[in-house]
């Protein structure tokens, strides 16, 4: 469209407006935009601005916020060891997602992307954890890891060693959470890769094969470069998702033991909402929002630009 206009020479501004009005695009925008805009303002912008304001108040949620606290909430947050731990944990989730989860997803995608009946079964099996509700997944794993009744209990009994409780072990509880996160979401990324791999032209792979490329070389030099856009998107989802992890942690460890397995969002929930420190929770929320936006903008700039 833009190209066509360019070729026709640049028309005057009024001419542009006239064309737009008569083409029906303006009308469409005028009719279709307000509902979305109003809803977006009401349910996204307004609450966002609200928490931006509350973050500067010491407020328990009752009455109007009147106790202006300046940056006190932010200062307390920065100095709170549990918050620092929760940021570390969220960073760990990002690292594990990038280093373990995505390579695993890619490996499995490469193994089962071809359309065969067996592959369909495997795809379903690997995708199942993603379909499962987060809370359900967290509960199931908390039963599995239970040292008295769970699978872990059967294992320790079979080996004749003392029962082991991973979710009450300070140094291992969050590792358990990360295992569940990887298990829960690798299927999603695998599906993205499978879809992309199926779009790689077969003749390109054949050509590489005829030229004498090994299987590994095909993957390295043909398939992975061809699905680069999919990988970029999946890394993006993975990082943003890692910042938002919540539902799996609550039933699994509830942030414990000794508040050692909080993510930023479970921290916000526990210390902001559940303890009715709405101002404080808002400060955490605002911080998380800024971090997520920063990641998104930075990432878009760096990787998601269209090639010139």
């Amino acid at each position, binding site marked *: 469209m833009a190209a066509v206009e360019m070729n026709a020479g640049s028309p005057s501004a009024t001419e542009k407006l006239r064309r737009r009005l008569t083409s029906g695009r303006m009308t469409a925008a005028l009719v279709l935009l307000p509902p979305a805009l109003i809803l977006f303002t009401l349910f996204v912008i307004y609450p966002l601005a609200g928490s931006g304001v509350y973050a500067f108040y*010491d407020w*328990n*949620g*009752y*009455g109007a916020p009147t106790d202006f606290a300046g940056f006190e909430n932010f200062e*307390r947050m920065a100095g709170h060891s549990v918050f620092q731990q929760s940021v570390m944990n969220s960073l760990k989730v990002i690292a594990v997602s990038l280093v373990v989860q995505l390579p695993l997803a890619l490996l499995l995608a490469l193994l089962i992307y071809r359309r065969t009946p067996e592959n369909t079964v495997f795809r379903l099996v690997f995708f199942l954890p993603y379909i499962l509700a987060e809370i359900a997944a967290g509960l199931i794993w*908390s039963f599995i*890891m*239970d*040292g*008295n009744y769970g699978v872990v209990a059967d294992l320790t009994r079979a080996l004749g060693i*003392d*029962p082991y*409780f*991973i*979710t*009450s072990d*300070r140094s291992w509880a969050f590792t358990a959470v990360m295992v569940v996160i990887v298990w829960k979401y690798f299927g999603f990324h695998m599906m993205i890769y499978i879809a992309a791999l199926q779009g790689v032209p077969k003749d390109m792979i054949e050509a590489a094969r005829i030229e004498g490329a090994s299987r590994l070389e095909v993957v390295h030099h043909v398939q992975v470069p061809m699905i680069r856009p999919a990988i970029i998107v999946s890394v993006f989802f993975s990082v943003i998702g890692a910042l938002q992890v919540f539902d799996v942690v609550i039933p699994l*460890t*509830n942030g*414990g*033991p*000794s*508040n050692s397995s909080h993510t930023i969002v479970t921290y916000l929930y*526990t*210390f902001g*909402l*559940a*303890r*009715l*420190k*709405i101002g404080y929770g808002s400060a955490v929320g605002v911080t998380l929002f800024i971090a997520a936006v920063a990641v998104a903008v930075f990432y878009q700039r760096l990787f998601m630009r269209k090639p010139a």
Partner: protein
Amino acid sequence: MKTFAGVAALCAFAAVGAHAETSVKVLRPESNSPDLQQFWQDVIAEYEAAHPDVDVEIEYFASEAYKTKLPTMLQSDARPDLIYSWAGLTLVDQVEAGLVQDISDALEQDYLDSFSPGALAAFSDGDAIYGLPMTARLVVFFANEELTGKAGIDLAAITTWQDFLDAVATLKEAGITPLVAGGKDKWPLHFYYSYMLLREGGAEAIRAAMEGDDAGFESAPFLAAGEKMAQLAALDPFQPGVLSTSAEQGNTMFGEGKGAFLLMGDWAYTQTIGVDQGDLLEGQLKILPFPAIEGGAGDPGATLGGINGYAVTAGAPPEAVDFLKFLVNAEHQRLGAQKGLFVPVMQGTGEAIQVPFTQEINAMIEASPEHQIFLDQFLGASVGGTINDISAELVSGDVTPEDAAARIQEAWDFR
């Protein structure tokens, strides 16, 4: 035609709305006792039959959701008229924000006199009364006599904390888990800390700390309670994995005979451990008060528990107060007691209790010189949450008694 039907329906709806009956909305946390829900339905039906122009609606939220959603609900158009309350600072916050109303004018003196004074005090501030108590809760040691008997322990001889520690050691030697607790939820462990605090300094120590006397929450009783907690933890008395056990699981484990003692609220009896659940502990279940601590300044008879009831929100119609008075009258208090649903708070109604377990609980509450409300409710959500945290961390050894007290003080300052 379709439009016409729609308009007609709207008109009909509006017409109903126009001469609507007064509605009274009650909001409470969900109860997993079907008998209690039935009790509510019966009371509501009875009230509506006598007052055809009043419509009582009851809505349930899950317990945690109830606590977090309440502030929003109270400030919205969907504000309920009667809200479940554990009293304490949360109620004070609601009063200060003008969200609940003083109903003292609507209550006659002889009605007020029928309550046990401590229970009524939880919902009043001077002459102002913001709601009515309905049930009393008590935290006690549940004991499995079969297990303690096996280890050769005489339950009746446990009167001091040292006796109790000795019993813990004896049980460990006999290869029996001395204590079970749901440490994942933290609040079951805060019962230990609260009782130690009550024994070390009494409710007076808590009042003094709240008023900022001496060292506030870092005063001697708080430090001593932390140390007692650490001493207990050093004996490794809990079941393995105590910090990943939920409260429900803990109760169930005790019911299955996996540990000798459980420090828990009386509700665990009706919900998991009691007669409804079969004869798991028939004849073996005993209850003991929390033992006295040698040298503690608190009254050794003081009890920890709850005074739960309903607060009346600002703007609620007079019918809401009327219904509340109906809900909490001697007859219904007696009915609830008789069915074993709760320990009533009106004087004399406890006689209706039939279940021996609940009778014993009632007697302990009546004999108590001082009934302290659960600290995690009494001190409000934020400080309460911190007390739960440090209780769990004292058990895991992740915090020293000094740091624990300092953290409570910090949470109090930043309330």
